[in-house]
C-alpha cells in the first residue's frame, strides 16, 4: 500500500475511534484531501518544492511516545525556567512534559476547547487557513486533528513570559510523520510572545506537517518567532495563519537555518481596519537544504499597514524560494504594503527563486516590492581585508551584517542572543 493510502487509512480509523467534537471537521478535511491529493510539481505554488517526494517512503504516523527516555530537553530555549513550555512529540501534544505558568493563559486539548466556553471561537476559526491553502497538505493536517491544542490568551492580559513550543520528533526507530496542530486565540487587548522550535531525535527521516492558526482580536498584540534549525533529515511544511479580526498588531519572524526540505506558509489576513503586521525572515542554507517561504498578505479592510522583509544567504547546493503574495481587495483603500527580498549566493551551485506577486483591486493604496540576488560584495571584502582582517573573518562579518537587520527584529533578548549564536556558529566565528 502506498504511503498516502496508509495515511488515509489511519485518518479513517481515527474517524471510527475518536468520536469527539472535531469529528465532522476531520471527515470533511479527509474528503478534501481525497479530492486534492498531494500537490505535484505542476501545482504553481509547489513548483520548486517537491513535497510529493516526501510521500515516497513509509512513516510511523503521529504516534505518541513516552518522554521518560526521550531527551527533548536538549531543545529547550534560553530562559525556559520562567517560560511556558508546550511540548509536542511526533505531532501530539504532551501535557505531562508541558508547563503552563502564566496567569491568563489557557492551554487545552483542542477537542475539549471545541465544546466548552471556547466552542464558538473554535468553530469560527479552526480551519480558516484552508481558504488560503487549498492544496491537500493543509487538509491532510486537518484530517487528523489528534493531540491538537487550543491556546487562549485572556482578555486584557499581557502574558509575562513567552510561550515556547517545542516540536520534537522521535525517529530513533522509524521514520516519523508528525502533524502538530494549534489554534491560538489572543483576546481583546491581550499580548503574547510565542516561539516555536523544532528538533529531531534519532537518525530516521522526519516529516512534519504543521498548521498553526492564530486569531488576533481588537487591540491585541502578538510576537511570533519560528526557529528552524533541524537536522538534514527533517522536512517540514509549516503553516502559520494569522487572522486579524480587530485592529491589532502582529510581528512574525521566521529564522530558517537548517532542514532537508522546508516549506513555510505564512498568511496574514487583515480583516479589520488599522491593523499592522510585520513579517521578517532570514534563511541561511548550505549543503542540499531547501527552504521555501510562501507568504500571503490579504488586505480586506482599509488603512492597514504590512511590512515584509526576507533575506537569504545560500551556500553549497542549497535552494531558497521566496514567494510573496499581496492581495488588496476593492474595499481596502489607503493601505500600505511593503515587501522586500534580498539574497546572497555564496556558491555557483546554490540557487534562489524569488517572486513578488501583487494583486491590487483598490485604487488608493501604497504598495512596493523589490528583490535582489547577488554575490558577497567584493569591494566590502577587500575593504575589510585591507584593514588586516582575514578573508574568512571578513566574509563572516559581511554576512553577519547582512543578516543583522532581520536578527534585530527578534525582540526578546535571550532569543535574539540564541539565534545570533546559531548564526555565528554557522559563520564559523
Amino acid at each position: 500500500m502506498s504511503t498516502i493510502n496508509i495515511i488515509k487509512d489511519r485518518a479513517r480509523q481515527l474517524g471510527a475511534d475518536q468520536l469527539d467534537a472535531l469529528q465532522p471537521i476531520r471527515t470533511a478535511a479527509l474528503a478534501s484531501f481525497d479530492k486534492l491529493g498531494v500537490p505535484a510539481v505542476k501545482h504553481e505554488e509547489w513548483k520548486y518544492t517537491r513535497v510529493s517526494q516526501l510521500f515516497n517512503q513509509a512513516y510511523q504516523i503521529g504516534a505518541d511516545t513516552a518522554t521518560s527516555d526521550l531527551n527533548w530537553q536538549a531543545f529547550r530555549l534560553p530562559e525556559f525556567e520562567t517560560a511556558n513550555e508546550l511540548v509536542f512529540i511526533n505531532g501530539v501534544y504532551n501535557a505531562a512534559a508541558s508547563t503552563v505558568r502564566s496567569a491568563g493563559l489557557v492551554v487545552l486539548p483542542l477537542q475539549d476547547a471545541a465544546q466548552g466556553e471556547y466552542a464558538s471561537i473554535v468553530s469560527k476559526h479552526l480551519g480558516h487557513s484552508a481558504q488560503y491553502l487549498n492544496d491537500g497538505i493543509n487538509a491532510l493536517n486537518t484530517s487528523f486533528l489528534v493531540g491538537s491544542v487550543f491556546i487562549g490568551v485572556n482578555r486584557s492580559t499581557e502574558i509575562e513570559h513567552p510561550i515556547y513550543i517545542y516540536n520534537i520528533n522521535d525517529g530513533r526507530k522509524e521514520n516519523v510523520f508528525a502533524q502538530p496542530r494549534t489554534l491560538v486565540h489572543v483576546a481583546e487587548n491581550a499580548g503574547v510572545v510565542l516561539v516555536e522550535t523544532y528538533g529531531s531525535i534519532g537518525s530516521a527521516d522526519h516529516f512534519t506537517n504543521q498548521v498553526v492558526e492564530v486569531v488576533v482580536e481588537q487591540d491585541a498584540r502578538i510576537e511570533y518567532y519560528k526557529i528552524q534549525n533541524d537536522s538534514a533529515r527533517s522536512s517540514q511544511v509549516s503553516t502559520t495563519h494569522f487572522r486579524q479580526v480587530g485592529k491589532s498588531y502582529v510581528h512574525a519572524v521566521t529564522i530558517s537555518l537548517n532542514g532537508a526540505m522546508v516549506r513555510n506558509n505564512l498568511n496574514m489576513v487583515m480583516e479589520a481596519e488599522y491593523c499592522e503586521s510585520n513579517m521578517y525572515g532570514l534563511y541561511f542554507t548550505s549543503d542540499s537544504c531547501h527552504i521555501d517561504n510562501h507568504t500571503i498578505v490579504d488586505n480586506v479592510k482599509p488603512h492597514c499597514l504590512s511590512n515584509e522583509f526576507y533575506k537569504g544567504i545560500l551556500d553549497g547546493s542549497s535552494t531558497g524560494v521566496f514567494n510573496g503574495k499581496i492581495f488588496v481587495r476593492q474595499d481596502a483603500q489607503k493601505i500600505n504594503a511593503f515587501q522586500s527580498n534580498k539574497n546572497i549566493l555564496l556558491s555557483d551551485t546554490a540557487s534562489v527563486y524569488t517572486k513578488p506577486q501583487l494583486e491590487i483591486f483598490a485604487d488608493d493604496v501604497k504598495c512596493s516590492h523589490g528583490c535582489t540576488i547577488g554575490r558577497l560584495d567584493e569591494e566590502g571584502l577587500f575593504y575589510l581585508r585591507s584593514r588586516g582582517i582575514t578573508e574568512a573573518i571578513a566574509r563572516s562579518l559581511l554576512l553577519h551584517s547582512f543578516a543583522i537587520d532581520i536578527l534585530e527584529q527578534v525582540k526578546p533578548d535571550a532569543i535574539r542572543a540564541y539565534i545570533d549564536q546559531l548564526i555565528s556558529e554557522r559563520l564559523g566565528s
Partner: protein
Amino acid sequence: MLQIKDLQAGIEGKEILKGINLTIQPGEVHAIMGPNGSGKSTLAAVLAGRSDYEVTGGSVEFLGKDLLDLSPEARAGEGLFLAFQYPVEIPGLSTINFMKTAVNEVRKYRGEPTLDAAEFLKLMKEKMNLVNIDKNLLTRSLNEGFSGGEKKRNEVFQMAMLEPRLAILDETDSGLDIDAIRIAAAGVNAVRSKENATLVITHYQRLLDYIIPDFVHVLYNGRIVKSGGKELALELEETGYSFLKNEMNIA
C-alpha cells in the same frame, strides 16, 4: 622602508603602470601627483593588494619583505594602510565593531596580545580625540549615509587606530571642501612620526598645503616623469599638467 622597482601592472590586459621606481624612508612624506588616468589610484590599489589588478613586472619590498607576495590582510599586518578614495559602505557593521576586529587581527598577526573591551575603548577614545571624530559616527553602520568629509575622517580614524608604518592616502581630498580637507589633514599630521611614512596621492596641490611633503613625484602615463621637493607641487599648481605633455612630446 618601501622600495618599488620597475613596477608594471595593469587591469584586464591593459597596462597602466609602466615601470615605477620609488623609494620611501621612515619619517618621509611623499606626494604623487598627476593628471587623471596617469595611474595614481592603480599604484595605490596594487600596493594594497587589490586582486583585480595584475602585476606584470618589477618588485616591491616593504620593510624587507616581498610585498606583492602578501595577502591584503598580511600587508595591513606588516604595517601598510590605504585610505580609500571611495570608502565602502557596509550596512549593519559599525565602525567600532569593525575596528575592534581589525585592531585585534593585526595584533594577532604581529604576535601581540589582543585587547579586551576596556583596553579597546581606551585606545578608541584616545584616537578619537587625536583625529577629532564624533563617537556617534563610529556607532553607526560603517560609512552608510556618511558625508564625503565624514567618510574621509573615518579613514583617518582607522589609520590612527591601526598605527601603520606606511599610510597611503588615495585622493583623500577628493570631493571635500577646504574645511573638511583641513580636518582630515590635521588627523594625518597628528599620527605622523619619525618611524612611519606617508604617501599622499592627489590630483591637486591644495592638500599639500596641510600635509607638507618632503618629496613630490609626478606620475604621467604610468611612469614617474619628474621628482622634486615641495616646490614642484606649487609649480604644477601654476602651470597645470599641460607642460608634461609638451615635455613628453619633445622627449
